[in-house]
């Protein structure tokens, strides 16, 4: 997500580490780079200015100058300020207020409101709510169908809006229906609109006044530029936002909009969208995001994901096997399947601290189809072969290649990688991450 900014700050602070002690001049250099990096990341100009000033104020004090490792101290300050700017603790949807609880999604065209409505509904159902999806975008062609299809895919109820109804009527009738059918959470997908379109902004105000929603969430594209400030400010002034959802965070946008929007609205970023699938919605953790920006990796998210997807029993077994050094191709396949559940390889690599710093991994775009191929190759082996790869000779390799629709070279490559991986695991057992780094650089 924020890799580019991370790399940038990494480089700056590497430079800073070179000095024994920080002088006023060093801080200036460092802060100038921070400023440029933030601007390149599309953080709003004024927000950057405030941010750099705050860091500067704190940094020129004794805190930095007296510290034994000045570079680290400065990183800490930048990190803390970034966290503070992106705002406090993580926040979920607010369920207090008039029953049934209603959530309005608002934003510009193409920011991802409809997809987010589907994702939010799935997330809330997972929390035991009974969501009701309400398509209130009568303007964009097929917008209503889009939400209804998503609802259908999720096996969830949606209000049967039609384009010649008024959005306000849709919302009011949907609220009545929700009450009757005991749906406790109404998610309203409004039409995308420009913040300067007074007619359509008034329409939103009308809906807000009529249904008194518990949440009015601005859905914003993480790729938004300097204008993010104006957009967020106007929506906030008109409607009184309660939160933000940042979408398309799975691209390479540096996501400066996150900082900008938070700074001008002072409203929490509640979730981030990280993919096109309906489960690709994650809570926003300001502290973790700040860590990410500073190249400290997003360990907690990874751990949490691993906990949610990894089968605890299998993990224990695996650990035993690694200890006994009896890690087989069968286990390897299990691992692949578990990893696939955790997300894309790019996401996973991005979350492991240190890995994004390893040169040989930079610019690496893991190919997901490679995983499919590897699985196919392993599936084409006999059980005996999987448990003892050393018996796989030339003719077995040919058979495996044929069975999996790959080439002998592919099979060779997999076996070579597997041996490499076994070695890596032995090293990992002996001494943690440093050894992995050696393995990659060596």
């Amino acid at each position: 997500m924020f890799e580019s900014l991370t790399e940038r700050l990494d480089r700056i602070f590497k430079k800073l580490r070179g000095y024994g002690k920080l002088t006023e001049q060093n801080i200036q250099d460092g802060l100038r780079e921070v400023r440029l990096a933030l601007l390149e990341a599309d953080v709003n100009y004024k927000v950057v200015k405030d941010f750099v000033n705050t860091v500067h104020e704190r940094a020129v004090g004794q805190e930095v100058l007296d510290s034994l490792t000045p570079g680290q101290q400065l990183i800490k300050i930048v990190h803390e300020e970034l966290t503070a700017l992106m705002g406090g603790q993580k926040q979920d949807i607010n369920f207090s207020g008039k029953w049934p609880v209603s959530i309005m999604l608002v934003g510009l065209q193409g920011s991802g409101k409809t997809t987010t409505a589907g994702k939010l509904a799935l997330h809330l159902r997972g929390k035991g709510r009974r969501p009701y999806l309400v398509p209130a975008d009568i303007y964009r062609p097929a917008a209503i169908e889009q939400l209804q299809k998503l609802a259908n895919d999720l096996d969830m109820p949606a209000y049967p809006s039609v384009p010649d109804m008024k959005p306000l009527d849709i919302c009011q009738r949907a609220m009545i229906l929700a009450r009757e059918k005991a749906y406790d959470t109404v998610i309203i997908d409004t039409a995308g609109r420009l913040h300067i379109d007074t007619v359509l902004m008034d329409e939103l105000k009308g809906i807000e006044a009529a249904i008194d929603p518990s949440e009015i969430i601005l859905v914003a594209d993480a790729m938004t530029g300097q204008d993010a400030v104006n957009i967020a400010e106007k929506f906030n002034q008109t409607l009184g936002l309660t939160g933000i959802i940042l979408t398309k965070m799975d691209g390479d946008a540096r996501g400066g909009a996150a900082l900008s929007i938070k700074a001008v609205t002072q409203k929490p970023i509640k979730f981030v969208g990280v993919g096109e699938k309906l489960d690709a919605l994650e809570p926003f953790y300001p502290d973790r995001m700040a860590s990410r920006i500073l190249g400290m990796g997003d360990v907690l998210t990874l751990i949490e994901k691993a906990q949610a997807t990894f089968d605890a029993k299998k993990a224990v077994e695996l650990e035993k096997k690694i200890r006994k050094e009896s890690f087989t191709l069968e286990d390897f396949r299990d691992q692949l399947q578990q990893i696939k559940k955790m997300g894309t390889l790019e996401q996973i690599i991005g979350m492991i601290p240190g890995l994004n710093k390893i040169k040989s991994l930079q610019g690496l775009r893991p190919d997901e189809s490679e995983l499919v191929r590897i699985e196919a190759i392993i599936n084409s082996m006999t059980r005996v072969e999987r448990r003892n790869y050393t018996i796989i000779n030339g003719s077995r390799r040919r058979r495996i290649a044929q069975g999996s629709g790959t080439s002998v070279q592919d099979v060779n490559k997999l076996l070579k990688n597997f041996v490499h991986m076994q070695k890596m695991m032995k090293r990992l057992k002996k001494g943690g991450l440093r050894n992995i780094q050696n393995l990659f650089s060596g």
Partner: protein
Amino acid sequence: MFKWFLKKKEEPQEKAEEESGLFQRLKDQIARTRESFVKQVDRLFLGKKEIDADLLDSLEEILITADLGVSTATELIERIREKVKRKELSDAFALKNYLREEILTLLRSPQKEGEEITASPFVILVIGVNGTGKTTTIGKLAHRFKGLGQNVMLVAADTFRAAAIEQLEIWSKRAGADLIKQKSGSDPSAVVYDALEAAQSRKTDVMIIDTAGRLHTKVNLMEELKKVQRVIQKKMPGAPHEILLVLDATTGQNAISQAKLFNSAVGITGMVLTKLDGTAKGGVVVGISNELKIPIRFIGIGEKMEDLREFDPDAFVSALFD
């Protein structure tokens, strides 16, 4: 036949009329951009005759706030600094004119004259990240081509997003264009292949392909796009004749990354900048023009079928500065 991707020189009368309409519209639409940008510049120059460091710093702020990006802004400022050093620029007013000319040059350079294309069907592939306005732009393009008396076919190759096909279908009806579609979830390459076959037998003049929005960093989805391109090339050598990248003007510096990666995957021939009717934007165009030398063909300035305009650097910068 397709010269009006560029300027319609053969019809000066109509052009003048359209230009003034466009000019006015553009001015209205980006009035806010102008206000924030030009007023700031004017305020900056007000009461200032000398060019000093403060002035240049404030100028940098204005350029960056307009989404020109750090590198383009720095480049422009550096050039001004050089000129000042060599005493070629001395007063604030001359600086403003110089800046205007420089931005214009950056915008104008990639707007090359295209040769006339006689291919039939003339195949346009429309690509971009999610939510930039591909389908809406296609609807507008179809309307434009129909207005010129062409047979237009729209191809629903976004088989991924829910109701994307229905969305294009509505636009095809509005514009009076043919539509080729298959079931949601089918292979986009197959849809395109069949569509080409149909277009060739129906003697379609213009075929516009709508693809699914995809983030430029998703390897698999970019591969899918390359496959679509390969299938088109195989079925009709020389096609697609135009590969349009649709960019959202609200997007910040990431637009450059989008343009770069889509360009290296399939080779973009032109860009469409959408949602220019909002606030304070357009600056990213300067950065992209400068860095990638790909022409901007059209701009989107509203949700109506008529709200598509040829990109005209002169009108654009004039509306920004005058």
